[in-house]
C-alpha cells in the first residue's frame, strides 16, 4: 500500500459511504448537503484517472451550479418538509424491499462481470498510448474540442441553449403550463 492507493481508497470509501447516507437519510436537507461530499470525492477520483480538467469541471458545474439549483428548488417546493419530517409509519414497504432487491441483484451482476473480465485482452487498449502523468491533459482536451469532436461540441452548445430557454420558459411566472 503506497500513498497513492491509500488516498484513492479513502476517497472511494468516502464516495460510497456518503452516497449511501444520501439515499438512506430521511432528512432531505442533510442528504442534499451530503451530496456535496459525494461530488467532491468523485472529483478526487477523477484526478486519479489523470483527468484534471474533468475534476475541475465537476467541482465547478456540480458543486457550484447543480447543488445550488437543487437547494433553491427544495426551498421553493416543500416548506413543510423542513420543520416536520415525520418518518412515514410504514416506511419499509414492499416497494422499498423490491427496490433494494433489484439494486442488489444488479450490483451482483455488475460485480461478477467486472471481476471476471480480463482488461488486458481488450484490443484497442493494447494498441493505444496511455496518458502519462506528465501530459498536459487540458491542452489535449482543447485541441480535441476544436478538431476531432467539433460536431458534438456544436450540437452540445445548441442543446444547452435549448435547455436554458426551455427551463426559463417553464419557470416563468404566471404561465398556464
Amino acid at each position, binding site marked *: 500500500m503506497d500513498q497513492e492507493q491509500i488516498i484513492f481508497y479513502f476517497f472511494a470509501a468516502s464516495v460510497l459511504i456518503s452516497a449511501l447516507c444520501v439515499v438512506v437519510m430521511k432528512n432531505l436537507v442533510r442528504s442534499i448537503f451530503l451530496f456535496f461530499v459525494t461530488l467532491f470525492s468523485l472529483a478526487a477520483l477523477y484526478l486519479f484517472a489523470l483527468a484534471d480538467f474533468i475534476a475541475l469541471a465537476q467541482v465547478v458545474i456540480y458543486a457550484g451550479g447543480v447543488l445550488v439549483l437543487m437547494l433553491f428548488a427544495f426551498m421553493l417546493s416543500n416548506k413543510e418538509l423542513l420543520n416536520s419530517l415525520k418518518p412515514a409509519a410504514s416506511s419499509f414497504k414492499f416497494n422499498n424491499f423490491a427496490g433494494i432487491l433489484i439494486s442488489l441483484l444488479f450490483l451482483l451482476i455488475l460485480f461478477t462481470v467486472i471481476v471476471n473480465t480480463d482488461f488486458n485482452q481488450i484490443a484497442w487498449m493494447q494498441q493505444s498510448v496511455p496518458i502519462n502523468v506528465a501530459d498536459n491533459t487540458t491542452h489535449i*482536451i482543447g485541441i480535441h474540442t476544436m478538431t476531432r469532436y467539433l460536431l458534438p461540441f456544436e450540437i452540445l452548445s445548441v442543446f444547452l441553449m435549448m435547455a436554458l430557454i426551455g427551463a426559463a420558459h417553464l419557470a416563468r411566472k404566471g404561465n398556464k403550463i
Partner: protein
Amino acid sequence: MIPLSHFMLISAGLFCIGLYAVLTKRNAIQVLIGIEFMINAAVLNFVAFGRYDKISGGGQMFALFAIVLAAAGVAVALAIILNVYKYFKSIDPTKTNTLKD
C-alpha cells in the same frame, strides 16, 4: 497506478445506489439525486477508460459532454418540479398521475 477494475467496481456501486434511490424515493428531488449518481457513475467509467487513450481522447471529451448534459437536464427537471409543485402541491412522483387536467 490504480487498476481499471477498481474504478469500475466503485462506479458499479454508485450506479446501484442511484438505482435504489430512483426506484424507492417518494420525493422528486431525491429521484433526481439518484439520476445524478447514475450519471456520475457513467462519467467515472468514461474517465477511467479515457486514461488509456491519449490519441483520440474520447473518454475525457465525452465525460465533459456528459457533465454538461447532466447540468442542462437538472435545470429543466427542477423547473418542471417547481411547476408540478405549484399545480399538485406535492412533489411525490406517485401522486402526480396526470399530464393534463
